[in-house]
């Protein structure tokens, strides 16, 4: 009886917090929305309307911890955000629309969004009319608690700017919504720089890399120059990495030296070799090995599952992490390096005594952008002391771990979306 009461009260009382800005915000992370049946537009097909609105909500998910799910079944009062089209007097709303021109939509705090169906709403990139996507993203911003922002390029500008062919939420808009709902946080399965060789039209071979973050069955490409993920990410693993386990991996290792260039994914007790040129896993590689293979077979002395691993080009060793132990595997000798496994504190000592992940780490990542190795665990990371650090401060221990920082303050806006919004 008591539990029922708790559930009853929690269900109907939406706890509100004013957050620091004094603007109201939802205190739920997963919000339900619905395009109201009697409020369909007469200009676009219903499916077009719903898919544009789905994308608009997804765009807010991609930059904030909020997730949105279309709910066409629950009681209306359990739907957080209701949207509809109407002209003049509409949907029982107190504010009448003014016909074509001027007001094209309005929204109420934490509740409804109405679109003026006298306006000529069009699908994205139609090149004419008023982009329903752009207006929807703007009005959802209001519902989430954002006011108008008079900044060129902000999606929260009050007036419609037709000429922007494609639009995305810029840095300041992201910070505005994150002021209300916080930043995206979470653990990762692995992080790596995927290196590829490409030929220019002149036949030159150039080497490119991109940074990828993986979490469960999703991945993000991270654009280091722009401090954000690729627009439209996350994407499902099975779309971008054919052949690896679709529910995620434990580690990614790129063995790259004068004689070798091999990419491996690890999951459980097995590992796969990835064919970067054909963008899929090898069934059988040029050495005749069929994949997946047992880790203990490919790397004698090491057995899965492992926490993570990375390849150190300085000494051609792969460092496998498992619980509190580190296994250094000498690739050239095809055996564990002498004296390993060792405790992680002995191999990667803390620079500040109590500031250490103490094993069970999520990710060991060598970043070409930062030319440094990072160990990630939970929402924190520790940077490994590099040669340049030791040049400036010789007293630093070799492979020491510098004091931790927050992952989300270093790699920004790596946000989940609701599974129903994931394109498969």
């Amino acid at each position, binding site marked *: 009886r008591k539990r029922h009461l708790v559930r*009853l009260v929690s269900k*109907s*009382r*939406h706890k*509100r917090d*004013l957050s620091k800005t004094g603007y*109201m915000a939802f205190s739920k992370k997963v919000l339900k929305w619905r395009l109201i049946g009697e409020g369909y537009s*007469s*200009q676009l*097909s219903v499916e077009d309307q719903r898919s544009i609105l789905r994308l608009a909500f997804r765009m807010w998910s991609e930059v904030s911890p909020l997730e949105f799910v279309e709910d066409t079944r629950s009681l*209306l*009062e359990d739907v957080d955000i209701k949207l509809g089209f109407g*002209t*003049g007097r509409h*949907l*029982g*709303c*107190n*504010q*009448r*629309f*003014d*016909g*074509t*021109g*001027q*007001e*094209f*939509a*309005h*929204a*109420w*705090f*934490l*509740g*409804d969004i109405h679109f*003026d169906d*006298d*306006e*000529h709403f069009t699908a994205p990139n139609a090149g004419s009319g*008023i982009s329903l996507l752009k*207006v929807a993203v*703007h*009005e959802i911003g*209001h519902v989430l608690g954002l*006011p*108008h922002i*008079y900044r*060129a390029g902000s999606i929260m500008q*009050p*007036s*419609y700017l037709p000429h922007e062919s494609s639009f995305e939420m810029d840095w300041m808009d992201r910070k505005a919504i994150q002021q209300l709902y916080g930043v995206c946080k979470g653990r990762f399965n692995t992080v790596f720089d995927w290196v590829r060789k490409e030929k220019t039209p002149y036949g030159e071979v150039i080497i490119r890399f991109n940074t990828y973050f993986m979490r469960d069955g999703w991945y993000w490409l991270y654009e280091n120059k722009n401090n954000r993920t690729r627009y439209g990410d996350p994407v499902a693993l099975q779309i971008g990495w054919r052949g690896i386990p679709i529910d995620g991996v434990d580690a990614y290792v790129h063995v790259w030296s004068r004689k070798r260039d091999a990419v491996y994914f690890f999951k459980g007790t097995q590992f796969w070799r990835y064919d970067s040129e054909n963008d899929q896993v090898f069934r059988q590689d040029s050495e005749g090995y069929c994949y997946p293979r047992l880790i203990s077979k490919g790397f004698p002395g090491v057995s899965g599952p492992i926490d993570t691993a990375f390849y150190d080009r300085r000494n051609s060793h792969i460092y496998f992490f498992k619980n509190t132990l580190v296994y250094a595997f000498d690739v050239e000798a095809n055996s564990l390096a002498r004296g390993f496994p060792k405790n992680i504190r002995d191999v990667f000592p803390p620079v500040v005594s109590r500031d250490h992940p103490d094993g069970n780490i999520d990710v060991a990542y060598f970043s070409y952008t930062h030319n440094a190795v990072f160990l990630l665990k939970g929402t924190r990371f520790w940077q490994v002391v590099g040669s340049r650090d030791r040049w400036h401060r010789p007293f630093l221990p070799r492979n020491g771990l510098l004091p931790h920082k927050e992952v989300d303050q270093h790699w920004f806006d790596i946000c989940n979306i609701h599974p129903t919004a994931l394109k498969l």
Partner: protein
Amino acid sequence: EKLFHNRDYSDVQTVNSHQAEIIKDKHTAELFLSRYGFMEPVNWEEIQFEDSNTFSSDDFLDDLPGAMIQEGTSVPQARHALHNGDQDDRPTESEAFISALKEFQKVSGLLVTGVFDEATKAAMNKPRCGVPDREIELKSSIPPETSSDLDSFDYILNNTSLNNSHNIHMNTVRR
């Protein structure tokens, strides 16, 4: 009789019987500026909607202090109406209009002249969002909101649309 369209709406002629009122003179500009929060409504009754009596029946609103809420106005403006409490130190009408015009010109990136020129007219006639530009600060004389006040106040915000009114009662009954 309502048009019935082909399945693919190919025969939709966007013949719009009604057009938003063009902002062309001082009067319509004043309406625009007051509607979007740049100045106090000059003729409060002007903004009234015709089925005004439906709203006042909602007793939540009645107990807002000093409420001069007209039916049909959206709640954000209701907070705006609260502002009217301090009558006697108002600027003259034209001063208020000019300062509001300047404010609008400034935020719209126009030359701040205080004159209702062509550029300002064009900016006012652009398609735009109906949410007011200005948040109206509640007077400090209003007691700080307790969380329960906040809840009930939020409830107003959530459920102002008519088709939710039955929800309001239903929830009240359930609580």
